[in-house]
């Protein structure tokens, strides 16, 4: 593989590995925990580095995950007696851990690779230079790492799918059924900090948040079913990594930054065009409802005057503007709508209901008697004769 292809693979695999734990995190309303975790793991890395004197050690990962858990524990402790709310506790703890790490680095380790820039912002472009040969495959270390984490996260998700879904939606029920949601949550967070550590080597700590949160948030707009939600999240993750890659190459800019921006763009697209929850879909629904209401109003009006002495007068097109408060143009449009759907037909100068239109009017009157009665009481409608039954 060429370095460029390898980079694309790393980006896609990292995005996928982060998107999976992000799914349940969002459902638990703890998406910002990813932000806090990704900052806190720095402390663990620094401490492990001081103890071991090396940056290439599995203990670094262990230290990082431990500091992630320490953060969660501290937040829990602070908010326990209710004097500090959860958001404030989170906002206090992770800057503190991050600050301690920054101070340790800048006072005693200013010369090593762990400069705060690289950790915060990350640089994917160098990933292909660190390689590892295993099982006859010579691949970048980052790809091995992220691939392993992807498998781990996927395995965890599939193995505990039932337990995870239950405790995300109703952790009290999960607890009373004996599923131990707290333990499960701790495991989840441990995995999440592992993922953060591995990913921030590649994309930097701030953009880990993008990889974790964006796919889930976008998928939430696209589906209400849990399995579909995860499939969408995975799709968005891969797509944003590839679009981000193109953007980065095209503009000669940071790959990690471009991936985050691509995720934001995909979210915006979902916000506008999601089939059920999108902005466009909302506008169309509103328009359809407005037309449906207008059609119903017209046939009800005709139905009420059908066979009465006033029929000839009430059912002229010109009269509609007076009675239904429609402008001549609107009245024309709406009559056309009803003509199209075959609810009314012209009988000389006046409109008359077809059989279909009569049925529609009756149905509408059946469905809306309360609203109609209420509206008439408030004098919002003209004093029509009571609907015949």
């Amino acid at each position, binding site marked *: 593989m060429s370095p460029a292809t390898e980079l694309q693979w790393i980006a896609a695999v990292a995005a996928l590995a982060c998107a999976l734990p992000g799914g349940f995190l969002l459902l638990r309303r703890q998406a910002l925990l990813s932000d806090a975790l990704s900052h806190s793991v720095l402390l663990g890395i620094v401490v492990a580095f001081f103890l071991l004197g090396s940056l290439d050690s599995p203990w670094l990962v262990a230290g990082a995950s431990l500091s992630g858990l320490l953060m969660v524990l501290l937040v829990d402790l602070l908010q326990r007696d209710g004097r500090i709310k959860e958001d404030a506790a989170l*906002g206090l703890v992770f*800057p*503190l851990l991050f600050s301690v790490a920054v101070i340790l680095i800048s*006072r005693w380790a200013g010369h090593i690779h762990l400069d705060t820039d690289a950790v915060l912002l990350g640089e994917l472009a160098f990933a292909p230079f660190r390689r590892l040969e295993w099982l006859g495959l010579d691949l970048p270390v980052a790809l091995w790492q992220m691939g392993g984490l992807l498998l781990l996260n996927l395995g965890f998700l599939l193995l505990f799918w039932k337990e995870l879904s239950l405790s995300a939606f109703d952790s009290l029920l999960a607890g009373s059924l004996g599923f131990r949601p707290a333990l499960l949550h701790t495991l989840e967070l441990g995995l999440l900090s592992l993922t953060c550590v591995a990913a921030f080597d590649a994309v930097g700590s701030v953009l880990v*948040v993008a990889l974790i949160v*964006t796919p889930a*948030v976008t998928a939430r707009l696209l589906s209400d079913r849990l399995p579909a939600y995860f499939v969408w999240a995975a799709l968005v993750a891969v797509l944003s990594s590839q679009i981000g890659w193109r*953007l980065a190459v095209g503009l000669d800019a940071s790959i990690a930054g471009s991936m985050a921006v691509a995720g934001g763009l995909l979210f915006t697209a979902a*916000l506008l065009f999601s089939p059920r929850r999108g902005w466009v879909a909302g506008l169309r629904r509103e328009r359809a409802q407005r037309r449906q209401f207008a059609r119903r109003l017209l046939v009800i009006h005709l139905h009420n005057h059908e066979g009465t002495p006033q029929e000839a007068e009430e059912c002229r097109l010109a009269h509609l503007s007076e009675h239904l408060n429609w402008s001549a143009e609107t009245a024309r449009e709406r009559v056309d709508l009803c003509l199209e759907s075959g609810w009314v037909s012209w009988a000389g100068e006046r409109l008359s209901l077809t059989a279909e239109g009569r049925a529609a009017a009756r149905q509408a009157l059946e469905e809306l008697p309360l609203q109609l009665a209420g509206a008439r009481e408030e004098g919002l409608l003209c004093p029509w004769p009571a609907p015949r039954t």
Partner: protein
Amino acid sequence: MIQLDHMARVVLAGCALIGLTGGALGTFVVLRRQSLVGDVVSHAALPGIVLAFWLTGSRSTPALAAGAALAGLAGMLAASWILRRTLLREDGVLGLVLSSFFGLGLMGLTWIQRQPDAAQAGLDRYLFGNAATLLSQDLAWMAGAALLVAGTLALLWKEFSLLAFDADFAAQLGWPVRGLDLILTLLTVVVIVLGLQTVGVVLMSTLLIAPAVAARQWTDRLGRMTLLAGGLGALVGVLGGAGSLAFARLPTGPAIVLAASGLVLLSLGLGTRGGWMWSGLRRRRQRREGREAVLHG
């Protein structure tokens, strides 16, 4: 007392001012449970800083701060629009806005850095903050912001108090809740942007939260809490600033965060409103009284 040179005085005054304003305003941020807003705004400001630098080619505080404020405000408005229009909840939306905006800023930053005229050195001081780069004229801006915040709080005190405790009731009374909310957000953005240069993106949120949380442990009155938070913020700023001046390679932002966290811990322990020490003492006394009652009763 040690003789302070000009730079040291500027640094200390800057830290104190930003601590004062951040603390006072933070009272409302914390009470409205928007503690993570500071984090979001300060990350979202990055693209604005980069854009302002690219457009004006200067690193002067007003230009960059204006860009940062606009971008931060845009981020907050985007977040509140999405929150109103979709079923998504705050955590997800804030995370999304934070990371997308920051990613955009990062793209811009790397793009500018790869341009031939590399006069951009120092832009990244906004990421971590360095009070040593403060100039006397920056102080004027900070003092202006402090006055603005103090004036607005005094003028809209009643409205903001109700907004902090019962926004729904305020809306029912027909008060322009959205407008008031916007004013508070605007003030927060201004303070954060001015603080970025001193403490940086990652740590600015602490300066909003910590003094308010600490002050809350000492009083139940909103007025006192606001004043106390302002005072504690200034104290923390000065402590952190002095620390970073006294020790080599101790960055200002983290130093202030350490001081602020220490203060929170102290207040949690000693605070007159349920501090650990008092409740511990009370428990001991009750246990002793109970024992005596059993023995002599």
